[in-house]
């Protein structure tokens, strides 16, 4: 399974939605994922790809990990997987 599909699966599970209901341009807010859901999603992503995601809930925009949409999360994780492989 590629990075994108796995992330969509993780986000869908967190949002209690079908995978088909998650669009790449959705924000986490669109999907009803709150701050706790976000922290849990990041944990699931770290576990799934065996990576460290630099994320501080106090300042999400300054964490160097772009969470503005599903697409941006996929891109950020692809970078991290490449960098940490």
């Amino acid at each position: 399974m590629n990075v994108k599909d796995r992330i969509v699966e993780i986000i869908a599970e967190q949002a209690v939605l079908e995978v088909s209901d998650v669009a790449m341009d959705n924000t986490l807010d669109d999907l009803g994922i709150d701050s706790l859901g976000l922290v849990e999603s990041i944990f699931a992503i770290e576990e799934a790809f065996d990576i460290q995601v630099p994320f501080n809930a106090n300042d999400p925009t300054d964490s160097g990990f772009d969470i503005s949409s599903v697409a941006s999360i996929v891109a950020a994780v692809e970078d991290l997987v490449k960098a940490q492989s």
Partner: protein
Amino acid sequence: MRRVVITGAGTINALGKSVSQTMEAMREGRCGIGALEFRDVERLSIRIGGQVKDYDAETHFNRQQISLYDRFTQFTLLAAKEAIEQSGLTFAGELAAKAGVVLGTAGGGVSTWDDNYRAVYEDGKNRVHPFVVPKLMNNAAASHVSMAYNLKGPSFTVSTACASSNHAMAQAFQMVRTGMSPVMITGGSESMLCFGGVKAWEGLRVMSRDACRPFSANRNGMVQGEGAGLFVFEDFEHARARGADILAEVAGFAMTSDASDIVMPSIQGAARAIKGALNDAGLNGEEVGYVNAHGTGTAANDRTECAAVADAFGAHADKLMISSTKSMHGHLIGATGAVELLACIMALRDGIVAPTIGYQEPDPDCALDVVPNEAREAKVDVALSNAFAFGGLNAVIALKKV
């Protein structure tokens, strides 16, 4: 209803091993936060904390005691000794039968859990020390204080995360105020600066890697601390009759529950607790000169707390001083309200308001007088101490100059 006063105080925390050392550090705006030192710290991504350094248990306790005293109990006993010695009280007869100890802790013997899980899971041992349970239990500290000082009245431990101490002190206050007991020992203790204790907090993604900067626009999270704060709460008439030195009066308190979210704070819940404490103490908001903030340095707490203070005090919010001493000693979780009460006592008694250090950039969402970076001389007649816990449980205490 009886008046309740504080006739003894004791502490050990990252700023000092006594009340005088701690207050001196607060006056000087000294930071007790530094590199954490314990086993496996290199496996953590958060490596700073307000740790009690240069501490050797063996200089205070014998081997048999250490086998029963987790670090949080050791801290408690050291702070209790200072507080009770200052009060000049000894407990015998009727007083011993009625006096008790109510303490707060969130985690209890966290390092005892940590060490023994490591022994059985990582090291594969099939046997642990026989005193693991009496050492780690949350009420161990309160029980050892009761044994050390012959306190035979109401004694128990309160655990409400970051509000534990304030909830405990509120209970002790209520017991003295209603006449149930003439003297109560109270406060709290916490020691979770060990691998498992910090690892758990790290998971929540709210910890700062570099500093605790409450109310500063560039704040990036909380920093854990450890230690204990203990007090002697005494019936005013009882204290006066024996000519005790009175540090401050406990004037009132309030507790509220947000009933909304397990981690996100609520403006309404916090504001109701602040207003409730003033109401309970029979005080007007305008009389409050200083608020020791919960001020964790997280984005969410500081913004919410400032809004709650603005809501509770109205126009007076811009006149009072509010500071977070967590910037210096870190967040002592279940002990935090107890150590922070010292800043309130210092403001009332010495006329010195502890600063919020590490303050770098104003945040429009925290536009109050946060006493940035330097302590200030001021005449303060009433001080509040805020504690707002995970789980939405809030407890605010009001102190008055005597």
